[in-house]
């Protein structure tokens, strides 16, 4: 019975995902993602921030398919450069460098690339299944939520964002408050008053999310890269032969890939989870359970297969909390949610019921995208490597120009560009002060709903705050939040956390 329902859902999704435009955008997304993953100095978060305007002109599903493709595509592209030139294109492939590049040095680059691609493919298929199975279950849980539960859930998400941010927890907390505060700019619907608009009509609808994220993440990152003077990538001359792994490679790789997939699928569901955390955790796991841990760092195939599967699985399952409950647990999901909100769709249970083709179409597109990625990546490896030699001084002016045009075409308002310039400077200053933009972004997205749910809860209880602890689900969520807070204050965990990020 349940299986029948699942198949009918998947059929709905399939119909939506294989329309020519959606297939094309899925391809464009994974291609862009691969490109971004290959190029160092531009991460998936910045790219998605910069490409948001494009998706506004599309149907919501088409836009989501493309953005999602960029995200998991970047996980693939990043590993290619990690293996061939020891340069992690983005942070989730840092551990891929360790053993993957060693294999390349031993003349087994082709095998390393194949293992990475097949591991990712397997993880992609498996975690798509996880989304299809568990998405509806979680959505059902959230179905019974009222304002107090939603408020507590958001509080949990924000405290988790503090934990997962690098560096000082108090600075991350301050960034949360700042993000919430900034999200209040504009019209307060309930009281019908304007807040923090400085009498500027352009601010009546609030701070522009595209200008804000483009500036704080995209352009600010460009300034940071420019002052570091990128050294040109020294490409290890590799003619790639022997793509196909040997039998014993397979025998060593597949259990690691299986473990990585399982680990990544679980970690992706947790706050702060996603590709980066999953790949680090999987590497640590493989090294710990290996009978020959000394081989790690010398080209151990398990140290490649595990993390490569884990990061892809984690990247995909991190969609579940956002799509089913409307809680983005990492900044990339926050941006995706922002894109949905711009389209007037609030992610959550209602989406699954009212727009099933949105959820299931996205799920099926991920499956298609994962196959496309293997096709794009393995045969075209040579092109990706050559791309590395494009100097940054050609790349970044192009990015600046495309950002300006993209942002301008959303509203045709020059004030949006002024906001972009201001947030670029602001983002750069925060970067210099080592304040992470991730918690800020998550808070900015959740802010208006948090205020709304707090207001409703308090109206419901006639001003009695104990409503949050007398409702059982809300109480559980608050206890979990408390647990996280204790973890932050607990010194041993803190040092572990710092070690994880080093």
């Amino acid at each position: 019975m349940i299986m029948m329902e699942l198949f009918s859902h998947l059929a709905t999704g399939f119909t939506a995902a294989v329309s020519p435009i959606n297939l094309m955008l899925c391809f464009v997304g994974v291609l862009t993602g691969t490109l971004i993953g290959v190029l160092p100095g531009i991460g998936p978060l910045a790219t998605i921030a910069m490409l948001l305007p494009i998706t506004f002109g599309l149907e919501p599903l088409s836009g989501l398919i493309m953005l999602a493709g960029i995200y998991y595509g970047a996980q693939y592209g990043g590993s290619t450069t990690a293996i061939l030139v020891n340069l992690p294109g983005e942070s989730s492939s840092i551990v891929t460098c360790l053993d993957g590049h060693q294999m390349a040095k031993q003349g087994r680059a082709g095998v390393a690339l194949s293992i990475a691609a097949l591991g990712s493919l397997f993880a992609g298929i498996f975690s798509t299944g996880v989304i299809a199975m568990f998405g509806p279950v979680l959505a059902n849980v959230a179905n019974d939520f009222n304002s107090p539960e939603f408020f507590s859930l958001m509080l949990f998400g924000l405290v988790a964002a503090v934990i997962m941010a690098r560096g000082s927890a108090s600075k991350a907390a301050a960034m949360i408050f700042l993000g919430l505060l900034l999200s209040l700019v504009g019209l307060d619907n309930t009281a019908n008053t304007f807040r923090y608009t400085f009498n500027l009509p352009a601010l009546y609808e609030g701070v522009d999310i595209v200008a804000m994220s483009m500036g704080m993440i995209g352009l600010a990152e460009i300034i940071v890269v420019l002052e570091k003077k990128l050294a040109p990538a020294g490409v290890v001359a590799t003619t790639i032969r022997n793509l196909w792994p040997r039998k014993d490679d397979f025998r060593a790789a597949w259990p690691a890939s299986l473990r990585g997939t399982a680990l990544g699928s679980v970690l992706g569901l947790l706050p702060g989870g996603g590709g980066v955390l999953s790949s680090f955790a999987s590497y640590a796991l493989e090294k710990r359970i290996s009978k020959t841990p000394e081989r790690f760092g010398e080209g151990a195939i398990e140290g490649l297969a595990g993390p490569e599967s884990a990061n892809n699985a984690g990247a995909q399952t991190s969609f579940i909390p956002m799509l089913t409950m409307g809680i983005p647990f990492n900044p990339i999901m926050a941006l995706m949610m922002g894109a949905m909100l711009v389209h007037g769709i609030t992610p959550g249970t209602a989406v699954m019921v009212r727009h099933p083709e949105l959820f299931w179409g996205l799920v099926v597109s991920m499956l298609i995208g994962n196959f496309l990625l293997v096709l794009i990546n393995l045969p075209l490896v040579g092109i990706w490597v050559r791309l590395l030699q494009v100097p940054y001084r050609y790349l970044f002016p192009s990015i600046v120009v495309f950002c300006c045009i993209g942002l301008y075409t959303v509203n045709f308002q020059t004030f949006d560009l002024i906001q972009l310039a201001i947030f670029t400077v602001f983002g750069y200053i925060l970067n210099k002060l080592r304040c992470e933009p991730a918690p800020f972004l998550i808070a900015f997205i959740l802010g208006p709903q948090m205020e709304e749910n707090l207001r409703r809860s308090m109206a419901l209880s006639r001003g009695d705050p104990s409503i949050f602890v007398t409702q059982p689900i809300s109480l559980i969520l608050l206890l979990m939040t408390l647990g996280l807070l204790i973890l932050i204050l607990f010194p041993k965990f803190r040092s572990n956390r710092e070690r994880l990020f080093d």
Partner: protein
Amino acid sequence: MKIRNVENFCAGFLFVILGGIGIYIGRGYDFGSLTRMGSGFFPVILSAALILTGLGIAVGAVNSEETTLERISIRPLVLVPAAVITFALMIPRLGLVLTVLVVAAVAGLASPDVDMRSNALLAGALAIFSLAVFRLALGIPIPIW
């Protein structure tokens, strides 16, 4: 008294200032009560939390590990936003082609290893590319001139 962790001190100071602005403006909004929260309730609470956290960070910075501020490079910090502002000023009046030419050139100057000839070539290429893709292919209604 010597401030050891300059970075955290500045961050804390910045948060206190921003929280101060939040409260200063926010006190004009109706605070309301717990039962009927006004427009000022959430902003004032958040600003207060921001100030307190900022104070904590700044005070903690006085006696902690010694750090210095990272060097700030003025050139990209000025030129990248300047390119964006240039775009804002030019696009409504001078159209796509001229704007992209100038904006790309201004942005290109931000690179430490800028070379005028390739910068000009890049600006030209980007102008043609933008015209072809955004105006002709995607049909975005921005005047060409």
